């Protein structure tokens, strides 16, 4: 993909059409995009609408317009503003699901390795590594003051004597520091097969090739144990 001097992608109308068609072909699309009365109740209740230039009503209206240009216009930063809380889906009188549409568009953005997706997900790599290589997402040793300075001085509590404090949690599965719980290797191996078969590893390879290499090394190690 080409970019202008401001980093904005330059794409053909054909490509925009291709992206829109890819969204419409998703088996969830028709379930998520129904009639829109433009009532705006979704946007009125939308949490990120208060802080970002983001409107679930516009997501639906752009899809209903059938104009690839308008849908393409949401593919960069716009889709990443959504909180995925599904307030819009719950309150829509027509049973539309703008949050679900966002999920479809994000999937396309990641699957195709758009620069905007790579940029947004760059700081996310630590989480991706934990989840895809070890089977759960948040470990106690990730809660460090230098990563979460805005969480206040008490956050340091978790980084001092952590193995001892984890041992004092009266659930044996939790008495580890490098994982949320001590995932059994057989469960990890099954997860790897699922990720391979479902194309999840391939997505990570597209969006972050260096991270993919690290994950594959860990996967190989666990499999060979």
């Amino acid at each position, binding site marked *: 993909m080409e970019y202008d001097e401001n980093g904005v992608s330059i794409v053909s109308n054909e490509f925009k059409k291709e992206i829109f068609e890819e969204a419409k072909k998703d*088996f969830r699309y028709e379930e998520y995009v129904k009639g829109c009365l433009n009532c705006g109740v979704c946007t009125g*209740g939308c*949490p*990120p609408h*208060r*802080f970002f230039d983001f409107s679930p009503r516009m997501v639906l209206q752009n899809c209903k317009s059938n104009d690839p240009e308008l849908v393409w216009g949401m593919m960069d930063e716009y889709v990443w503003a959504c*909180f*995925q*809380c*599904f*307030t819009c889906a*719950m309150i829509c009188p027509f049973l539309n699901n703008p949050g679900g549409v966002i999920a479809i568009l*994000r*999937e396309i*953005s990641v699957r195709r390795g758009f620069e905007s997706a790579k940029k*947004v*997900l760059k*700081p*996310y790599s630590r*989480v*991706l590594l934990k*989840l895809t290589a070890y*089977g*759960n*997402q*948040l470990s*106690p040793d990730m*809660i460090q003051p230098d990563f*979460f300075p*805005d*969480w*206040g*001085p*008490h956050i340091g*509590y*978790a980084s001092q004597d952590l193995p*001892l404090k*984890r041992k*004092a949690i*009266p*659930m*044996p*599965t*939790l008495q580890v520091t490098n*994982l*949320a*719980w*001590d*995932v*059994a290797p057989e*469960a990890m191996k*099954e*997860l790897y*097969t*699922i990720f391979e*078969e*479902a*194309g*999840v590893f391939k*997505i990570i390879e597209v969006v972050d090739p260096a991270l993919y290499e690290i994950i594959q090394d860990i996967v190989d190690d666990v499999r060979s144990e």
Partner: protein
Amino acid sequence: MAIEIRNRLGLADVKSDFRHIAGRKIENIHEELLELEAKGEIKVIHITDANKPIEAETLFGRKKKIPTTKLWHHKSCGQCGNIPGYPVSLLWFMNKFGTEYIDERNQTSCTAWNYHGSATSNPVGLAAVAVRNFHRAYELGLFPLIHCATSFGDYKEMRNLLVENKELRDEVRRIMHKIGRELVLPEEIVHYSEWVHVMRFEIAKLKKYDLSNIITTVHPACHCYKMIPEDCIYDKNIYAGKRTAVSTGVALALGAQVADYSTWYDCCGFGFRHILTEREASRSFVMDRKIRPMVREANSDVCITQDTGCTTTLDKNQWIGKAMGYTEQVPVMADVMFAALACGADVYKIVQLQWHTTDWRPLCEKMGIDWKKSEEEYKAYLEQLRSGGKPENLYEYA
């Protein structure tokens, strides 16, 4: 029934002799699930008498069976990693009631937090992970009890997608065969807060402290009641059946006051991606849309949650608010942790409030709990462990 509500303390306790349950016509997933089972397309984990189920009414009036025993605990990444007192409090209650359960390592994350944050998965991946974990419960003869609200929302959605889409079922079945498992779905997707809700009167019998002067504000989790809302519990005796009843129900059963506030329906600001990589949004949301209204409108003593991400987001983001003149503070904990405190669970060893950021000590003092004694005992316990002592666990794990 004419009811006048004079202040923010009355709404949760409003009862109604009629609950309007008409509205959307939705496909009955539960009937279709059983049809697929009859055709041999899927296997179903049924809720049997052995699970000692208790029924609760859902949004559109369907009765949902909540199994109360023979449970397989399906863990939450954030709870286990960051709020350990959350699952510990739940298991502490289960031990009190003699509930049969297994807490084990042979499970993976639902992976949905990552999906909603980064989109680096897809419906096949999410559904296969869900079925993999369901099958593990199935082979043990147990019913999956889901700890995390995002897992709960994701699994409800995946269950619906699997029931409605043969192609997805075929693909997931193919993957399950590769890992030696089968396509299994539970009869109901059940969240731990639903277990707490149907057990609330039993829980209240264990109450040790008077909570009549404690003002709670409930933050309901979006992925509990906004994702597949028709599968959530509503009760005509709680908010007159107009809001989901879980969490509020147990607070009321314990005799605490439950106050309304104007942003009850708002999310916490977690945002899945935002809490990790764009926290300015999360913390602004926390302070402006949740904590300030809870304190200013309701004078809340404690914010009661029902999910992992909400508990973390609301608890951790209050300290930084001071830099911008936000002086309002309120301790945050899950319904089951608050209930455990009320029933005499140890503040440090069981409820594990020492991991929380916003000060919870004033709440303990108002409840009449001697947290200093608990702290001293915990410190002594840590020293015991340091010198090679054996941990006091809630269960034995082979």
